[in-house]
C-alpha cells in the first residue's frame, strides 16, 4: 500500500481536464473507466483521486465540453457514460497544444545543456 502513495504524483491544475478529454477521445466512458484508463496508461503512476475526478467531470459537463448519459453496462449495471462534444474536441486540441508548449518549456529549463548545444 505505502509505495503506491509514494509513487503518486499530484496532478497540475488543469491537467486532469486534459487527461479526461484525451481519454474520452477514444470513445464514451464512465467515471471508473476513465480513472482506470488514466492509471493504466500512466504506468500506474497517475492515481486520479475520486474527489478530483467527479467534480472535474461535472464541471466539464457544465462547460458543455462533455455530455453524459445513463447506459446499462455489459454486467447489467446502470452507469453514467460521458462522451466528448464538438466544443470539447476543440478544447482538447487547444489544451494539448498548450500542454506541449508547457512540457517543452519545462524540458528546456530542466536540460539547459541540450538547449545550448542546439543553439
Amino acid at each position, binding site marked *: 500500500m505505502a509505495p503506491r502513495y509514494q509513487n503518486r504524483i499530484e496532478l497540475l491544475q488543469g491537467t486532469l481536464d486534459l487527461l479526461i478529454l484525451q481519454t474520452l477521445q477514444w470513445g464514451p466512458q464512465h467515471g471508473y473507466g476513465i480513472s482506470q484508463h488514466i492509471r493504466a496508461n500512466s504506468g500506474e503512476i497517475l492515481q486520479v483521486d475520486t474527489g478530483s475526478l467527479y*467534480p472535474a467531470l461535472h*464541471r466539464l459537463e457544465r462547460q458543455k465540453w462533455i455530455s453524459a448519459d445513463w447506459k446499462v453496462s455489459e454486467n447489467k449495471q446502470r452507469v453514467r457514460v460521458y462522451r466528448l462534444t464538438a466544443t470539447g474536441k476543440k478544447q482538447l486540441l487547444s489544451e494539448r497544444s498548450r500542454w506541449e508548449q508547457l512540457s517543452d518549456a519545462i524540458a528546456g529549463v530542466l536540460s539547459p545543456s541540450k538547449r545550448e548545444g542546439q543553439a
Partner: protein
Amino acid sequence: MKFPRDRDRKQDHLHDELQSHLQMAASDHIERGETAEHAQQSARREFGNVALVEQVTRDQWGWRWLEEFLQDLRYAARMLRNNPGFALVAVLTLALGIGANTAIFSVVNSVLLNPLPYPHAEQLVTLHESKPNFEFGSISFPNFRDWRKDNHTFSSMAISRRFAFSLTGLGEAEQLPGRFISSDFFSTVGVNPLLGRSLAAGEDEIGAAPVALISAGFWKRKFGSSSDVLGKSLTLDGGNYTVVGVVPANFDLFLRSFELAEVYVPIGQWKNPLLPERGSGLGIHGIARLKAGVSIDQARADMGDITRNLAAAFPKDNKGIGASVVPLRQEMLGDVQPILLVLFAAVAFVLLIACVNVANLLLARSTGRTHEFAIRAALGAGQGRILRQLLTESILLALAGGALGLALAWWGTQGALKHLPADLPRAAAIGLDARVLIFTAVISLAAGLLFGLAPALRTREPELQKTLKERGRGTSNTRHRAQSVFVVVEMAMALVLLIGAGLMIRTMAHLWTVNPGFNPQNLLTFNMSLPPSMTSANPDAVRAAVRDLDAKMAATPGVQAMSETWGALPLSWDDEKLFWLEGQPKPASQNEMSWALDYIVEPGYLQTMGIPLQRGRFFTPQDNEHAPHVVVIDDVFARKYFGDQDPLGRGIMLNTMRAEIVGVVGHVNQWGLDSDDTQQLRAQLYVPCMQMPDAFFSLVPGGISFLVRATNTTAGLLDAIRATSRQMSSQQVIYGAQTMDHIISDSLAARRFSMILLGVFAALALILSSVGIYGVISYLVGQRTQEIGIRVALGARRWDVLQLILRHSVKMAVLGVVIGIAASLALTRLMAKMLYGVSASDPITFVAVAAVLLFVALAASYIPARRAMRVDPIVALRYE
C-alpha cells in the same frame, strides 16, 4: 422555481453514479481473486470519503450557496427547537418590538405617506382671509368673487360652508348635514360626480335656480341608488331643490373643519342677509388649485396684490385684510405630524432595546457554544461559514418575531383605532397594506442582522486551542464587558422613553387641573332645528317659539337649568363681534374696531354653565326686545378695555346699537384647556338673545344650540328632551348631542393617545431592560461562583458578597442614567409642542424617572445577587 426538484433528482443520480463506481471497482477486485467482502472494503478504501466526494461534486453545480443556506436554516431551526426557552423569549421580545413598530408605521403610512386621493393633490391649497386678529378668518362672498376673477396663479378656486338643512317631504323629517358650495368646488378638488353633473358656472350666484347634489350614501338611503333621481325635487328648509348630481361615496377633504355632507347646495341659495356683504364673516373658507408649475410663494404674492387692490377699492371693509394660502396637506396634518414622528421615534427605541436584549441572549449562548464553534473550525469550517450560520440563526429568529409581530400589530391597531383621537385624518384607512408588510420584513431583517452581528463577530477570535482546552470558559471577560455595554445602552434608551412618557403624564395631569371657567359636569349640549314652516315666520313669532321652547325644556324632568345659545360655544366653535367703547369716536373702518368673542344667550346661561358672577348682575327675562340694550363682559374684557376702572354702567357700541355693561363674569376657556392663554382673542361678550336685531331671528329656526344642566346625571336626559320636543312638533329635529365632559375629553384625545402609547412603550422598555440587567448579573454570579466561594471561605460576610455583586449593576445603571439624561435633554425638545405646564427638561420628571430606573435596576439584580449571598463555599469549590 424548478431547481429544488431538479436538484434532488440530480443528487440521486450522483449517488447512483458513485455507487456504480464502487461496484465496478469491487468487481475488478473480485476478478483479481479477492473475496466479495474484502473487495468491497478495498474499493471503498481506494475511493475515499463518499459523502465528501458527493459534496465537492455538488459544489460544481453552482448551488453551493443555496445548499449551505438550507443547511444553515435546518441547523438553526434545530438549535431553536432544542432551546425552546431561549427561542420563546427571543421571539416574543422581537415580536413586541417589531409589532409595535409595524403598528405605528401602519398609522404613519396611511396618515402621512399615502398620497391624497385627488389628482395632483400637491396643487391643492386652502384659502382664508387673514385679518389683523387671526390668520385664518372666513372669506366674504364678494371678496371671493373678486379673488376668483383677478388671480393669475390658480387654475380654479372655490368656497364652501357647512350648513344643516331640514329635510321634509321624504319620509320622516330629519336634519341633514349640508354644505354650501361655489360652482367650482368639486372640479377644483378633482372629483367627478358619480351620476349627473356638478354645478355650472354662475349657478352659485344669488338668485340662480335652486339645484342640489347629494351624497352617494343619501342617494342609496333615500332613492335606492336609482338613476332616475336626477331631476327629482328635494325640500330643504321648506324650499325645493332639483337634484342634478350624486357625489362619490369616498369623497372627503380630510380636514378637521370639513364635515361630510349629504347635500351640496350652491352658496347663492343661502338666505343669510349678510351673504352679499363684503365685510361679513360667515365661516366660509376656500379651496383652490395652483396652476401647474406655480409655487406656493408665487400664489401668495399674487393673492397679496389682489387683496391690496381690494383694500384700496373697499377700505371700509377690506383694510388690513389679506389672504392665507396653506397647502392642503399641511392643513390636513396640522399637529398630527410631530406627534406621530415622536411616537415613531419612541417605538424605534423599543425595537432597539429588544434587539440589544436578544443580542445579549445570543451572546450568552454563543459563549456556551464557543466549544462547538472551535470543533467546527477544527473540522475545517471557514470563519465566513460559521459567521453565516450564526446570522442565519438570528435572521430566522427575527423573521419568526416579525411574523408574530405582524399578528400583534394587526390585532393592536384594530384595538387602538377605537381610541384614536378624532382629529387624526384618514384614520379609517389605517391597515396593513403592501408597504407595511415590506416595512415589517425589512425591519425584521435589519433587526436580525443588528442583534446577530455582535455575537457573531465575537466568535471571530477563535484561539482554537485555548478554547478547546478551557471548554468554553475562556473569553468570559470580554464577553461580560460587551454585555455590560449593552445593558448601559438599554438603560439609557429606556430612560429616554420613560422621561417622554413622564412628561406626557405630567402634561395630562396639568391639563386635568386646568379650570375651564365653567363646570363641565352634568352638562349636555345639543342642537335643534325648528319645523321648516318657521323659516318664513316673522321675528315676533320666532321670539314666541324660542320662549315656548324655554318653558317646555326647563319643565322637562331632570333639567336643572338650561339656555338656548347662538354665537360661540366654548371648546366647540367660535363667533366674533366688532365693537368700540362709548365715548370714543366711531372708528373710520371696521379694522380699527375691536373684536370680542360673542355669546348670544338667555338668562339661564350663567347658572347652566356654572360660570361665577364677579360684579353686577347677569341677564333677566326683563332684558327683552322692549328693554334698553344690555351686555355682560368677562374679566378679561374688563381688564383689557377698562383696566382699573369700573366697567359697570359703561356703554359699548355694537354697530349702531348702544348697550350698557351690567355685569362682569369669569373668563371661560373658549379655545381649549391648553391653548386659551396663548390666543390673541380672549375678551368675551354676552348678549341677551331677545335683544338681537330682527334679521337674527330669521336665521334662528335653522339651528339653535342648547345647553342643559342635569339635576343628577346626563344619562337618559336626552330621551326626556326628545320626548318633550316630539310633543311640541314632529318636525322639530334634535341632533349633535354631546356632554361637555365628552367635549373636553375629546379636546385632549390626541395628547391622551400619545401619553398612553408613550407609557406603553416606556413600560415595555423598562421590562426589557430590567430583564437585560437581570441576565447580565445572573451570568456574572454564575461565572464568579468559585471566586465567591473562596471569598466566603476566607471570611467574607454575606453583605460583602451582596455589595460585590450590586456594585457592578449600580455602575451600569448609573452610567445608563447619565447617558440617558444627556440624550433626553436633546430629544425631549422635539416633543415640546405636545407638552403643557411642564418644560421639556422638567427636573421633577427627570429625577423621578432616574430614581425609578435605578430602583428597578437594583431590584432586577437583587435576585441573582441573593443567590450569590447563599453560595456554599464547599459546593462552590468542589464545582468543576
